């Protein structure tokens, strides 16, 4: 949060974000790696440890990881203006690409060949998502925390079988997290 950005720095920030956002496939974690390469290794604007903390913050905050990381890096490099420039650079590529696609989608999806390809790709998407779920689920099981496994099972049943609103499930888990954090904190004090 230094806010001492000149036009040159802002322009560099904007075009770096634009470039990273336009060419990064594969979600928030990938984009953070690219940002590290650019801002830590390339431009030396941010140090290694700080970038790790920023990554943790970007992942723990609500919203898209890429946008969150852009906000953090933007503030750090150029204050408020840096943040604005950085966010615009990040959302411009997906905004443009998806706009173009949605205009053609109607014509696109009624074409029988395209429909066949899309339909086949849906199988692939289902596999990609469930592969990610296996990785993440394994991570939860490895923590060997009974509470976390119960949370996972209950949350799944609530949303899949009972159609409970997703927002309530997240709020409930968040509240549980706060309670756990507070009780652990107390235990820590007693010990």
């Amino acid at each position: 949060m230094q806010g001492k950005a000149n036009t040159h720095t802002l322009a560099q920030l904007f075009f770096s974000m634009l470039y990273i956002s336009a060419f990064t496939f594969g979600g928030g974690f990938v984009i953070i790696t690219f940002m590290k390469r650019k801002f830590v290794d390339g431009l030396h604007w941010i140090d290694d440890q700080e970038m790790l903390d920023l990554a943790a913050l970007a992942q723990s905050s609500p919203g898209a990881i890429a946008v969150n990381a852009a906000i953090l890096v933007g503030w750090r490099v150029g204050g408020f203006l840096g943040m604005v420039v950085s966010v615009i650079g990040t959302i411009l590529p997906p905004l443009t690409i998806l706009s173009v696609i949605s205009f053609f989608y109607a014509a696109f999806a009624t074409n029988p060949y395209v429909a066949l390809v899309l339909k086949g790709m849906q199988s692939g998407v289902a596999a990609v998502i469930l592969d990610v779920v296996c990785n993440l689920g394994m991570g939860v099981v490895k923590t060997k925390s009974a509470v976390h496994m119960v949370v996972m099972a209950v949350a799944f049943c609530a949303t899949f079988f009972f159609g409970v609103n997703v927002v309530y499930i997240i709020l409930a888990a968040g509240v549980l997290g706060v309670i756990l954090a507070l009780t652990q904190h107390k235990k820590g004090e007693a010990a």
Partner: protein
Amino acid sequence: MIYLQLFWSFLQIGLFSIGGGYAAMPLIQAQVVHSHAWLNMSEFTDLITIAEMTPGPIAVNSATFVGIRIAGIPGALIATFGCILPSLFIVSLLTFIYYRYKKLSVLQSVLASLRPAVVALIASAGISILLQVALGGQELTMANLNLIGLALFAVAFVLLRKFKWNPILVMCLCGAGNLLLGLLL
């Protein structure tokens, strides 16, 4: 009115998706398919497919796609703004706190409890997409079952899990495979 609805829906998606792109998916499904019927399940599945194939966060991609289809370019801009607005406030605040105190431990422990719930939500969304592939929204009978789709899913899953293939490559192969089989059979 429609702009307000789009803004409000995507604001909720931005506010409650914690843990990256896949975490936004169940929320987008809830808002866009179930609450407002802006897309049917088949269009939603196409949207996720397109979002996977293109750069950018799933939430921003979805906001643009749904916004344009419902209310043109202004709709896309408003939906996108809605989905990044919570981040703008919350992350800016966190940045401030971080540079003041450099402490993240409470946040980390809250995150630890959220993670299993988010995994469960992603699993549920993934399975509903698989059901969409298998049945296309029809009821469960042998005749309705899309066997080619299920076979492609099984092959893709093995390629990803066992052989760690690139997801985009696997998706493209599934698309090509289905086109080829569709033309041959």
